[in-house]
């Protein structure tokens, strides 16, 4: 037996891993061969395992503890926050393009968009071509009846304060300026009894973008970033924290995803 066969057990990672069953099979055989000739190491391993079992038994007593309601509530809250964190990461992270590719059917019944979608589809192919824009103008007129206030682009700080007050939560400006868009106006409309903050943007090429935000309240969040096409426009929609968001633009999925990411930033 050599001197190295009697290493200090405390400094032998193989022995420690063997005691915990964390050693690869071939190394395990080596350790077992050594233990056969080293009673001190054998005793150390046996006692480590025994103490480990006792501590594990004491820890398992925690499973018999009654449910702690405060812990359960905090656990739910943390799950919500982490879910939100995951969604943000999906919006800003490398998975962005992949997510944008998963186009889904835009669910009807959410906000004023559903009105336009349903009504314009109903007339498509039934009447002469000029009827559809006429009806769109009519629906826009009906929609304007639900408008509560409008602010020009140069009054955005005032608009954001007022919108935040009306929606009883802080509303931040969509940051589309970094993408070359300039805010034209902001308004508050009522859709399905809920306030909807709407921002209108335009870039130097005349391309228009509409962004909306509405409180989610108890409604379930939209999972991930979703997209749908209708009437030549493309809409992206998602939930983040207490708000539902939507962005409408005539652009590619990647372009719309960039717009959504800028709104969220």
């Amino acid at each position, binding site marked *: 037996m050599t001197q190295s066969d009697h290493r200090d057990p405390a400094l032998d990672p193989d022995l420690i891993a063997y005691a915990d069953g964390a050693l690869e099979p071939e190394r395990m055989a080596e350790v077992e061969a050594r233990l056969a000739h080293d009673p001190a190491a054998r005793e150390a391993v046996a006692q480590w395992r025994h103490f480990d079992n006792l501590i594990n038994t004491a820890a398992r007593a925690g499973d018999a503890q009654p449910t702690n309601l405060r812990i359960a509530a905090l656990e739910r809250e*943390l799950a919500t926050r982490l879910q939100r964190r*995951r969604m943000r990461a999906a919006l800003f992270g490398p998975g962005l393009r992949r997510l944008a590719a998963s186009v889904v059917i835009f669910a009807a019944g959410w906000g004023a968009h559903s009105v336009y979608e349903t009504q314009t589809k109903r007339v498509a192919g039934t009447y002469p071509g000029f009827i559809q824009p006429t009806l769109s103008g009519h629906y826009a007129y009906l929609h304007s009846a639900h408008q509560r206030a409008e602010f020009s682009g140069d009054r955005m700080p005032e608009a954001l304060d007022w919108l935040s007050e009306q929606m009883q939560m802080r509303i931040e400006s969509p940051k589309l300026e970094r993408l070359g868009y300039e805010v034209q106006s902001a308004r508050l409309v009522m859709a399905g009894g809920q306030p909807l903050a709407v921002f209108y943007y335009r870039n130097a090429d005349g391309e228009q973008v509409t962004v909306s935000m509405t409180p989610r309240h108890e409604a379930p969040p939209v999972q991930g970033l979703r997209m749908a096409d209708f009437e030549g426009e493309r809409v992206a929609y998602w939930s983040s924290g207490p708000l539902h968001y939507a962005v409408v633009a005539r652009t590619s999925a990647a372009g719309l995803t960039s717009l959504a990411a800028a709104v969220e930033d």
Partner: protein
Amino acid sequence: MSLKSELHSHVASLRRYALVLTRDPVAADDLVQETLVKAIAKADTFQPGTDLRPWLFRILHNTHISDLRRARTRADAAPDLPEPIARDCQHTQLELKQVLGALDQLPEAQRMPIILVALREMSYAEAARTLDVPLGTFMSRLGRGREALRGIVRGVKRGELSLLKRKEGGE
């Protein structure tokens, strides 16, 4: 596994870990609550795609270390540890008490690796990340801690034996 069920499983693990750390069910739940409150506040720093368990355990570990009040609670509340062993197994209960008592005498740097490994819920690497130490340091503390634990328990047993002999000699 959904995020909710994953989190639920981790919270159960946190309660086990906290129970051995504090040796008091009430203090353990306080520690877990404090951990979850901090985790909620730090949720934006969590990196999606990374393992949630070491992140939560690290918060609990740091909370425990920085909370001196909890250390006092542990010392005061040692007799309140629930009895997980069958009541008729008095020898095992005595051993459990000895081992947990010895565990309390170890420095935190050695105590925590021993408990984390005894939970059998994470690899050495995960446990090392939880304690924010390199793997080599973790293994060294685990080995030294286990040997120190043996030494303390052996000393306690010798003390009991000599006490018994003295009693027998006196009778």
